[in-house]
Structure formats: structure tokens, C-alpha cells
């Protein structure tokens, strides 16, 4: 992500320090993670010390300071999904992508994360890829679904 785009986002919020979280969220959603250079730029433009930006970005789970893939995979490990075989789905996805929960692959294609409940237990086991919900998914179906992502 280049500085021009960051400046554009900052200008959209009139460069106000109070819009810090909004600015960071927009960078996060476009770039999938917050590189150090981006944080430095934001710190400089909004006149917010880097310490406070670090504090905020490490506080909220919505922000990532390490690279994330283009598609984020969330696999629900809640009780209902667990009973319906979420562990098998997770195993399959781990084998297919070669990454474990919390990791990102080398091509920045997928990031894998486990979650504790997505609030739709009747659909269990659930896998979410980039915001799209795949419910009642079998390990083989999970494999098929992931092949559709570039």
C-alpha cells in the first residue's frame, strides 16, 4: 500500500486525530494488515504518537500487525461445530493450505484462524472464507470450496 492511498484515506477523515481508528480500519480492510510504514505515515499525518497507535492496534483484534492473506479463513470450533466434526474440517484445511491457525501462507493467499462461535450453530460445522459462510460443511466440501479462491 503506497503513501498516496494512505494520504487519501486520511484526507477523507479531514486528518483529524479522533478518526485514528477509522483510518486504521480502512487501511486494514484494503491491505489486510497494517505495515509499520503505514503506521508511521498515519502517526505523522494525524499527529498521534506511535506509542498510542501501537497501543490501539495491539488492543483490538480487528487489527493485524503481521501480513494476512487475501482470503481469511475462519473455522468455528464452538461446541456445536466441534461435535459435528469441525476438527476434521480444520485438519483438512490445514493439510490443503499448509498453515496452522494464526498463520498465513507464503503467497499471501490464505490466513487461517479458529474462532469460538459464529452465532449460527444450526449451520455447524461452519467455515467462513473472506466473509462468505459455508455451513454444514464436510471436509471434502471444504477442500472444494477453497479451490475456488485465487
Amino acid at each position, binding site marked *: 500500500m503506497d503513501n498516496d492511498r494512505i494520504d487519501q484515506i486520511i484526507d477523507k477523515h479531514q486528518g483529524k486525530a479522533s478518526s485514528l481508528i477509522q483510518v486504521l480500519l480502512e487501511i486494514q480492510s484494503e491491505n489486510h494488515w497494517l505495515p509499520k510504514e503505514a503506521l508511521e505515515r498515519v502517526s505523522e499525518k494525524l499527529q498521534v*504518537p506511535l*506509542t*498510542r497507535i*501501537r*497501543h490501539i492496534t*495491539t*488492543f483490538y483484534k480487528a487489527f493485524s*500487525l503481521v501480513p494476512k492473506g487475501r482470503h481469511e479463513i475462519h473455522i468455528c470450533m464452538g461446541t456445536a461445530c466441534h461435535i459435528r466434526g469441525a476438527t476434521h474440517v480444520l485438519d483438512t484445511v490445514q493439510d490443503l493450505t499448509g498453515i496452522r491457525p494464526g498463520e498465513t501462507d507464503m503467497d499471501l493467499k490464505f490466513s487461517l484462524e479458529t474462532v469460538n462461535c459464529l452465532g449460527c450453530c444450526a449451520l455447524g460445522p461452519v467455515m467462513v472464507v473472506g466473509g462468505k459462510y459455508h455451513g454444514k460443511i464436510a471436509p471434502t466440501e471444504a477442500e472444494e470450496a477453497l479451490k475456488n479462491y485465487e
Partner: protein
Amino acid sequence: MGEILLQIDGREVKVEEGMTILEAAQSTGINIPTLCYHEKLEPYGACRICTVEVETGGRTNLVAACLYPVQENLVVMTRSEKVDKIRKMLLELMIAHAPEAGALQELAQEYGANKDRFEKEPSFCILCGLCVRYCAEVKKKNAVGFVDRGGRREVIFIPEIAAKECWNCKECFPLCPTEALQAGYLLTEALAFPSGNR
């Protein structure tokens, strides 16, 4: 500024409006223990060791003396059974994080806190925020700050700022209630391994 009459530990005390209980007590020579308080900094209320019992309208309340403003006819008890019990517990919790801290050990002795009550988790930091706030409020450099949250919350130096500002300052080192060396360790870590830092 009007004057306010209140009672601290049975003594009538006359202080200025707008002062905190802690300042009022200090002005009359009554000692309230503190760990996160510093006269140059805004009160923070993190350590809670300055907890006192106040009586207003017939009932008592536990409040942080460093934050609570004085009121007319307030009755303050700086040592009571409740207060001592709370301070003892706080010290036992903090000492699990910073077992070797002199300030904590002295207080632990005074309040009969058991140093081994909780399993040791030496982070050597009680998150009082003195270094962080001193750097932000007095030096205005913001070289040191908090990261993460909950049980993983900790203090780090920002390598880019620390490399420029810290060698000639180090004024936060002696403020640390646990061990001045802790700040030194964190600073060295930040400068030696800038990318390893979050």
C-alpha cells in the same frame, strides 16, 4: 478557592477545594502508600494501593485517594480493617509479578502480605504506567508505551523513538517502583531487536 473542612483519621483538616484526599493527607503529614502516583503527573489510579475508606451520608465507600476530590465534612479512614485487607491482597498479587521489588517488599511487611500466596509470574512490572506517563506528559516524547491487553499487557519502548531520545534521558528509570533495571532491560531489548518488537 474556598476552604474545605474534613476529617482524616479522626483529625480535623482544613484544605483547599479541588484537592484530592491524597494531597490533603500529605499536607497534614498523614501517610497514604502510593505506587503509581507522581506529583508531576496526572493522577492515574492504576495501583489502587492508596485505597481509603470514606464516609459520606452515613455509609462508607472504598475509593482511590489519589483521584477522589475532597468534600465538606468527609470522614476519611486511611487505615481500617477493610482497607488493610484490600492493600494486603493487592500487594500479594503485585508481588507475584515483581518478587524482588523493594517498595513492594516493604509494604508487604507492613501489611502482612504473604509473598508466596500466588504463583510467581515475574514480569517485573506492575503496569503502574509511571514510565509511560512521564515520557508522555513531562518529556512529551512518547518513547515508551503499553501494548496488548488483559493478562498480556506490557510496556515496550518504540525502537525508532527510543534510539533518538532515550540515551540522553533515562529519567523514567528511577521512577520504576519494581526495579530500575527493568526499564533498562526493555530499552536495550527494543534497540537491539527492533524488529522483534510488536
